[in-house]
């Protein structure tokens, strides 16, 4: 009785080992199961989802106009002090002074891609882009100016 139990234990042990070996053997012989993505080579066909949060960009249309009013809602919403907005005063055609965006400074090195600034923006002027290759040799290159030179606010955006 003891011997029977002992032998069945040994066989059970060997079977459990063989089971595992069968599985690894299966993967060894079935190369179509391989899931490796060869990253820099598959850049063309690699599609990141639209919602992927890579960096903050400001949308400009073909007339080089953006929708940022310089309201600093994003700056307040940012937990890390990533965004710094410098405003100026434009003179409207009616002769009134109006607050407008001068420079939108974005510190990519501080950004945690939390999406809170996008949520806070009342005019949808900024959005998250899918670019994720941010490595540079100089940290100062990560401080970006988001509004393009010479751009101005789009008509009708308040």
């Amino acid at each position, binding site marked *: 009785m003891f011997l029977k139990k002992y032998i069945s234990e040994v066989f059970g042990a060997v079977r459990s080992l063989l089971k595992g070996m069968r599985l690894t053997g299966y993967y060894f012989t079935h190369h179509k199961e391989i899931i490796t993505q060869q990253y820099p080579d598959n850049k063309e066909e690699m599609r*990141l989802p639209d919602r992927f949060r890579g960096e903050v960009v400001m949308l400009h249309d073909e007339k080089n106009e953006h929708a940022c009013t310089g309201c600093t809602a994003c700056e307040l919403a940012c937990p890390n002090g990533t965004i710094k907005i410098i405003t100026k005063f434009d003179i409207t055609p009616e002769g009134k002074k109006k607050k407008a965006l001068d420079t939108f400074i974005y510190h990519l090195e501080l950004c945690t891609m939390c999406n809170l600034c996008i949520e806070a923006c009342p005019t949808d002027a900024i959005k998250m882009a899918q670019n994720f290759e941010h490595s540079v040799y100089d940290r100062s290159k990560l401080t970006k100016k988001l509004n393009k030179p010479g751009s101005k606010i789009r008509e009708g955006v308040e």
Partner: protein
Amino acid sequence: MIEEVGTTEQGDLVINVGPQHPSTHGVLHLVITLNGETIKKVEPHLGYIHRSIEKMCESLSYRQFIYVTSRMDYLSSHINNHGCALCVEKGMQIEVPARAKVIRVLMDELTRLASHQLWWGAMAMDVGALTPFFHAFRERETINDIMEETCGARLTMNYMVPGGVMADIHPNFQKRVKEFLQFFRTKIDEYDELVTGNIIFCSRMKGIGYLSPESAVSYGCTGPTARGSGISCDIRKLYPYEVYGELQFDEVTVAEGDCFARYMVRMQEMRQSLSIIEQLIDNIPEGEFQAKTKAVLKLPKGEFYSRVETARGEFGVYIISEGATTPYRIKFRSPGFSNLSALDHMARGHKIGDLVAIMGTLDLVIPDIDR
């Protein structure tokens, strides 16, 4: 170091395991006292990744502080965010729309699955089997892809906001989750084949790191660590939040209290999570995904505590508000911290190899411990 360890005798070996060590999974530093191969004492030295998140949160608004918590237990970041969002909602008395509730639970369970998968791979790697790690990552990547599509990020999503979720689910979400469920149902059997039944693995796990139910409670262990000792402590069952009360699932408890019991609890939990997702995936109610909230949240004066079940155990958020836009004091009760405190108790008298196995079954995430 020798002066610090009081019980050291002549001939004992004091070893620093970590902060850079293959099996501490982060910057955990253990000072272990050995007699030959036998462990006499384990003393955790923490703080290598301490960022004082509690202090940080005191200067962040109630919308902003949620994203920081995904950096604590980064493997169950959704659930951490969920706990914080729940606490703010409790204080503001925001009614979360039904759709958001279901989406939140779905995301929580997917996160739990992803976390347990990573744990399974890492745990097998700790006991010396290297292949399971890659197999686990295959499934985890699938979940991460689904998360990425809906939430916009793979690890620190910041998807939960006070009042709901940040964005509606992606149109592909349901389809892809269903595909994943089918895929994972076959793969979880492979997990059992490769590791669970393996005789070497069983002998490494059974009878090791015994934690009695009394000491599990006394040490404040929660989650699979305590459920492996037969303690019922699943917050989802005991204090249901969101839609957990309406769901059919079992709280997994195994009475043995050793490493294998904790392992089995997590394996069973994966199956339970699958069944929860299956129940919900076709029943996401229509409606808003986010309640209308004020732009600036101000919690009324008072104290608010919310608890959720992360992949590692009970995660508590304790907010003391003075009526301002930022919390006066915030305390995170992280599961790993209490679970780690039982490590010394469990590891004494075992071998070095067992210490690694015990740490594996505790499923330690160091930022969660250090905060």
